[in-house]
């Protein structure tokens, strides 16, 4: 849910808001919408969950490729819990399917922030690339997840480490750093201070609301 679909078409909006979402005839609309998301590097969790819901109620409609695409899309939303929210709508026999198991393995690595291991696994078998092949800009999306987490956590990071997190090197790496407005200083990448990576001590002060005082004000009236 981190990325809200800003340009959700009206058709889809009214579909997921009303009882029409249960109408099996609408599955094709949701499937096409997913295809558009994959094409245009957009993401709309609510619509995709509505598609999974229709599969949940009408198992005969289930389209494995669509489920794979939805899950691959959800991978690009980490650290939001979207991937699991999709899994909950599937069934036990479905999630032990080989493709879904592979996607789940990738998801676990991302959740655990084992980025170097993620890329290693991802490239170890062409099956993985095949799974996410319909999601345009998949690698780019994963890299921006890494960038977000790294910039939340670090002010400075060794460039060799960052390279392994991003699976980039040389000019590509330099270009990526520049694109993020980070600074490459020798063997170190400098990340500007933001609200998540500054670690400042805050004293939380008590905030007294008017309602808390009503009783006391009441006493003063009695006097």
């Amino acid at each position, binding site marked *: *849910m*981190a990325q809200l679909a800003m340009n959700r078409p009206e058709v889809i909006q009214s579909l997921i808001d009303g*009882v029409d979402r*249960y109408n099996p005839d609408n599955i094709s609309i949701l499937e096409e919408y997913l295809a558009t998301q994959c094409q245009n590097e957009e993401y709309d*969790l*609510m619509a995709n*969950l509505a598609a999974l*819901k229709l599969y*949940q*109620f009408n*198992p005969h409609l289930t389209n494995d490729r669509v489920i794979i695409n939805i899950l691959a899309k959800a991978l690009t939303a980490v*650290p*939001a*819990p979207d991937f*699991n*929210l999709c*899994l*909950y*709508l599937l*069934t*036990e*026999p479905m*999630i032990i399917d080989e493709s879904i198991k592979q996607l789940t393995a990738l998801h*676990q690595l991302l*959740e*655990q*922030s*084992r980025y170097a291991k993620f890329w290693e696994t991802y490239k170890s078998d062409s099956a993985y690339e095949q799974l996410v092949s319909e999601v345009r800009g998949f690698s780019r999306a994963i890299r921006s997840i890494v960038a977000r*987490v*790294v910039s*939340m*956590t*670090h*002010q*400075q*990071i*060794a460039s060799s*480490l960052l390279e392994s997190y991003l699976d980039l090197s040389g000019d590509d790496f330099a270009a990526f750093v520049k694109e993020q407005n980070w600074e490459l200083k020798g063997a*170190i990448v400098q990340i500007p201070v933001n609200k*998540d*990576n*500054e*670690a*400042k*001590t*805050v*004293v*939380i*002060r*008590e905030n*007294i609301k008017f309602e*808390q*005082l009503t*009783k*006391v004000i009441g*006493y003063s009236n009695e006097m």
Partner: protein
Amino acid sequence: MYHDNYEEDDLAAEVELVTSAQYPQDADVDDGFDSEGVVSSQKQPIAVEIPDTIKNFITYFHRNVLENNIYELHTLYEVTFNKLTDRFYAKQPWPEAELISPLVDDDQVFLTLYRELYYRHIYARLSPSIQDRFHSYENYCDLFNYILNSDFPVNLELPNQWLWDIIDEFIYQFQSFCNCRNRIKNRSEEEIALLRDNPQIWSCYSVLNVLYSLIQKSRINEQLLVNKNGGDMLEAAGEYGSRPLYKMLGYFSIIGLLRVHCLLGDYTLALKMMDNIELNKKALFSRVIPCHVTTYYYVGFSYLMMRRYADAIRAFSTVLTFIQRTKQYHTRSYQFDQIAKKCDQMYALLAMCIALCPTRLDENIHNHLREKYGDQLAKMQKGEDSISVYEDLFQYACPKFISPNGPNFDDPASLSQVNEPYQHHAKIFLSDIHNQTMIPTLRSFLKLYTTMSIDKLAAFLEMDADELRTQLLMFKQRSRQQKWITGNLLEGDIVSTSDLDFCIKQDMIHIAESKVGRRYGDWFLRNITRFQDVIATLEHKN
């Protein structure tokens, strides 16, 4: 209160009770799984005499339903019915509707309402057979058809508590059916045939259809919007929605959908159902205590599953505080046991949330939590075989998940596979928890320092530096959560939910802890009140 002596005594006495032949003596089918009943469903002996007390009760009950006498119905429904159940029908069903039909002039509406109670009692105290389940479903269809498919709003008023119980029980029986349908081992062929030939009974679509129809008929969402934004309530409510019966059934159906979607594992949709309901003391759900408790339980649980721990904590602690404050009212209620159980489950869920997202709780709630789940909480906070603790608590406190589709009877291979939705949910949930088991330990170390090198901390923790780095990245991510600020329950901003924050500069960790300043105001306010009490006592003595 209910009196044993009615004027109608003679009326009841006139009724003949020859019932022998009408009763189908079907075999005593026990599906042997439901834990809700200890005694198996014993059909009544033939030609049983209905005690006079019961006859009188039924005629009196009937008259009050006809007269829409809400006040009296309230007592009859909540108190008398349960008292009589304990006295006469603790171990056997109430008389069948056909037997009491002469007492109530064959009033079909009343008989439908009566059957609703009749089956609910079987579910609660005995164990329902497949036939009972089917008949109960058909009875619900009759009831809802009567309410929904009439040319004018029906002239019927029932206490809110009863209306809530109807929706609540309808969903409970649906859930119970889904769970029992999947256990086809040890079932007779006849039963399997019944299940196979009647897929429409208790199907997901039909249950959702009822709930959505009630919402639409009552125009409850339109009413809630007017309530929130202003406007013409009468126009929004329409002919049906302005009747309390429709309005409340519509409202309770929203809460019902929250629950159904949660049982199906669709947590976002569950919370989306609540779009027009604001969680506050003025909300309609607070008029019926079990509804109030149910609402917060499912909202909190959905948040927990969406990893929005801070919101889950808020939901649970709000309702637990409420239950504590109103204890004296519901200890007497016939639903006390149920509320107490839900309450206990919510403490278990709260313990998990607190371990996952350390938060200061209200003092009272915190003490109760430590009393009930102190050991478990300590284990989860230390990260020592915490997974098994999470598993136990989850199993105890989660709702009874359902799978929407029955077994595929045409495929013998799939019949042997037990499709257990609980396993599915627990597996996903626990694998997510598993990723964060190191966080409490990490946290306890970071709390001790303001700066520390990665290598040193790694040595303390007996892990290698790379592993520690990934743990730190995860710690950071898990300390940021979506949290509700205003608007719909699904909305929220990403905020930091931890009092401990850090940043990494190359190989050094810089740590900062937020501190809570002293709460002077709170202290003074409490003591002013105490002082005022002392003065009041002194003045009283003079």
